[in-house]
């Protein structure tokens, strides 16, 4: 990765960290810069500590990085926590009236703003934020015009006078910085590219809209609620019915009902809500009604840490609902993939009439990324599978909903089609849907129906691509990750290369089917394998072992609620290559 620039904005919840974050993100993306934003926050509406990191640069920015170039603390607490993380060349813009910076590294520029003399703070409660933004735009060489345009957009519709006032305040900050502070040594460039900036939750929701979802329902649960918010705001325009349901049990069952009626139905939750849904996942599989469930993982168990990230739900997904049944599970590897994965998993779920699970996490759900708008394809390939939506010649009563076939897939008639009436059942049933669980239990039929459903597994394996090794085959170390860690592992590999250590990467996107044989092929010849994951027990390592008997040489695990930073992986790889340990648990240095 070439030059990047990181800004950290921190304060108490309610102090207005989000607005400058949104404005800066917009300005960067309009300069044709990539960006990645991650907000560390707590489950509190007012107070606490919120810290937003925005990292930008001309090339794709896949993660929050290791360090800050500019710190904008909105309170003393923030400067106390983060100032020491600034290195030489960094700067801190702060309110000179209320904040006293403490110890800082040599070469850090302290930029006090006399807020009460530059703005009327009795009138404008967030004047310090706006002044700091103005100052930042001066010091980064971006210029004032772009800031003025975005502020006008942000406030203009509601009240032009408010926009004017904020522009004047920003201007004062800009001019003060131009006169009093040193600009950054490397100024941010401008490119002709234009990117969309979106959160993973927005991407998941839009991916659903692109996939042809017609029914979305949810119960609010962090960090998945953003999907509901996008759907509720845009459902009418997109032709999607959106329902807020009484609990997650109701959510998945309502989605299954809509799916049975013939539409694509989706729902999203987090680990606790998913736990409530599990019985109905079995219904989806048994009655062969496809639905897609998104799990945005947060730190567990139980209520856990609702605002912090983790990859701790894998085994819950693998074991969700009792009995054996075919399912698909996929983990998006970045925010753009949150969009593209949804149409893909719907095609598999529909074709094989199985539940599809998307294993996202808070890092992606609530993080934001610049994405090439071309990636956001609203006309992707849609395969609804074998559906009967109008009479097709079997409307004489001979139709069998659970017809035994080689593929295990039976054509699916939806209610309302004359001549195809049948019962779908959660009880074990015969080919025509008649229960064989009560009066007519029949071991032969039970076996035939189990084998019919499980035959789908073969087809699903062919429908989904196996993972491929990225980077040089003969690398010193192979890093294995899954889902959201793709970007941070990539950057760690680049840093390792600079230090003379070559690393390649096997990133798992489809967890079920896993393609164990293909993985073993890819790992054959690996000099040293290390599995990187955001959980305590090495859930993926255990899964890989159970499916393939493959045992990795080492593990890097993090379960403090915060995501990996590249240097965490780099340092862990180095200590493992030096033979110091086979299990590294990097400490998160930033107290958020």
């Amino acid at each position, binding site marked *: 990765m070439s030059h990047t620039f990181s800004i950290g904005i921190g304060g108490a919840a309610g102090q207005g960290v989000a607005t400058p974050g949104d404005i800066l993100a917009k300005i960067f993306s309009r300069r044709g810069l990539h960006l990645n934003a991650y907000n560390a926050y707590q489950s509190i509406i007012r107070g606490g500590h919120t810290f937003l990191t925005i990292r930008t640069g001309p090339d794709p920015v896949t993660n929050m990085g290791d360090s800050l170039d500019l710190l904008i603390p909105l309170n003393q607490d923030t400067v106390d926590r983060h100032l020491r993380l600034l290195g030489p060349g960094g700067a801190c813009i702060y309110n000179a009236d209320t904040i006293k910076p403490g110890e800082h590294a040599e070469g850090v520029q302290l930029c006090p703003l006399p807020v009460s003399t530059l703005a009327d703070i009795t009138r404008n409660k967030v004047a310090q934020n706006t002044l700091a933004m103005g100052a930042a735009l001066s010091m980064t060489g971006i210029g004032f015009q772009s800031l003025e345009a975005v502020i006008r957009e942000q406030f203009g519709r509601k009240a032009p006078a408010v926009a004017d006032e904020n522009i004047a305040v920003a201007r004062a900050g800009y001019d003060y910085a131009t006169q009093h502070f040193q600009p950054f040594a490397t100024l941010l460039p401008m490119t002709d590219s234009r990117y969309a900036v979106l959160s993973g939750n927005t991407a998941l929701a839009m991916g659903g809209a692109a996939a042809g979802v017609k029914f979305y329902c949810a119960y609010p649960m962090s960090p998945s609620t953003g999907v509901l918010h996008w759907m509720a705001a845009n459902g009418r325009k997109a032709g999607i019915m959106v329902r807020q349901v009484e609990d997650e049990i109701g959510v998945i069952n309502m989605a299954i009902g809509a799916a049975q009626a013939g539409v694509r139905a989706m729902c999203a939750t987090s680990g606790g809500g998913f736990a409530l849904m599990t019985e109905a996942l079995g219904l989806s599989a048994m009655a062969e009604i496809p639905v897609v469930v998104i799990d945005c993982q947060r730190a567990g168990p139980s209520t856990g840490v609702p605002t912090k990230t983790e990859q701790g739900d894998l085994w819950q997904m693998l074991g969700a609902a009792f009995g054996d049944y075919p399912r698909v599970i996929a983990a998006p590897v970045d925010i753009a993939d949150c969009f593209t994965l949804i149409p893909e998993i719907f095609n598999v779920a529909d074709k094989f009439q199985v539940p599809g699970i998307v294993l996202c996490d808070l890092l992606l759900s609530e993080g934001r990324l610049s994405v090439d708008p071309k990636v956001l394809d609203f006309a992707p390939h849609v395969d609804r599978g074998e559906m009967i939506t109008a009479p097709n010649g079997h409307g004489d009563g001979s139709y069998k909903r659970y017809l035994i076939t080689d593929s295990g897939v039976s054509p699916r008639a939806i209610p309302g089609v004359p001549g195809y009436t049948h019962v779908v059942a959660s009880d074990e049933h015969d080919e025509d*849907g008649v229960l064989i669980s009560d009066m007519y239990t029949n071991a032969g039929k039970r076996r035939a129906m189990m084998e019919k459903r499980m035959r789908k597994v073969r087809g699903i394996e062919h429908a989904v691509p196996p993972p491929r090794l990225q980077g040089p085959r003969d690398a010193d170390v192979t890093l294995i990750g899954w889902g959201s860690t793709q970007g941070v592992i990539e950057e760690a590999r680049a840093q390792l290369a600079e230090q003379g250590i070559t690393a390649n990467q096997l990133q798992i996107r489809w967890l079920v089917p896993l393609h164990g044989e293909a993985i073993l092929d890819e790992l054959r010849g690996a000099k040293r394998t290390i599995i990187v994951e955001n959980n305590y027990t090495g859930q993926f390592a255990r899964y890989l072992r159970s499916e393939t008997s493959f045992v990795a040489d080492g593990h890097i695990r993090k379960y403090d609620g915060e995501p990996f930073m590249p240097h965490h992986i780099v340092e862990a790889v180095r200590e493992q290559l030096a033979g110091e340990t086979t299990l590294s648990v990097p400490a998160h240095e930033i107290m958020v």
Partner: protein
Amino acid sequence: MATTVETPKPLTVADFKGRVDPDWCPGCGDYGVLAAVQKALVDLQIPNHQVVTISGIGCSSNFPGFIETYGMHTLHGRALPIASGVKMANPELTVLVTGGDGDGLGIGGNHLTHTMRRNVDLTYIIMDNQIYGLTTGQTSPTSRLGMKTKSSPHGNVEGPINPITMALAAGATFVARGFSGDQKHLTDLIKQGLQHKGFSFLDVFSPCVTYNHDNTFQWFRPRVKRLEDDASYDATDWVAAMEKSTIWGDEIPIGKFYERTDLPSLDQAEPVLKDGPMVGRPEHIDPAVARTFIEELM
């Protein structure tokens, strides 16, 4: 030249006979409910393929297998959210939900409250036998205080829920009580429920002849009294309905307690359905709309 238009044959009860015979105990109250539902569908001439019968789990929840319509035999307590999903995706379907008192008032109680509040256009029949039958006789949410069952061998120390009062309080727009032993009256109530645009709640006494020796056909027969026989009773008066719902003893009112027709059902209130059912729409959204979604992010 005159053209002959083939008039479809009128539907008969035989058309609604399921592929398998009911496996309920001989004499079970559920037979009467099944017959009344079939008769109501015939009277209203609703085509089989336009009806979806949805149930949870329990003796009475085997119902969809015994009637020739589209059917869903789902999870214990979850019939209502599933039915809500079906109805909201395709409001053109007639959605009938059947189940027992344990399924609807016990494990599914949360869903019931909210489905009533939302006024989803469903007809929900609880076959209320005041006992758990399929699990061989334990107390249910409607078992009387003091009732001896396998799970209350010393007598039930918990009081029963009153389904009618509960439905009225939760905002159901059609609330009725029927008795499996009064076929004609029950059929008429089910027809009214099917025709009501909104949530129709029917609590139907359907005695369990195997496990409930307290609330038998013989026990109910002299007690049930039709509200329709009282010319002064006004089923649009919610307060009167609440008062009537509390009567229980030597006299037990059955019939339509309450109906209001001035509230839109959920499908009528939902703006996205103004363009027709969700089913059958194009898979891809309008490219112009898609562009606005992306532009908002730039």
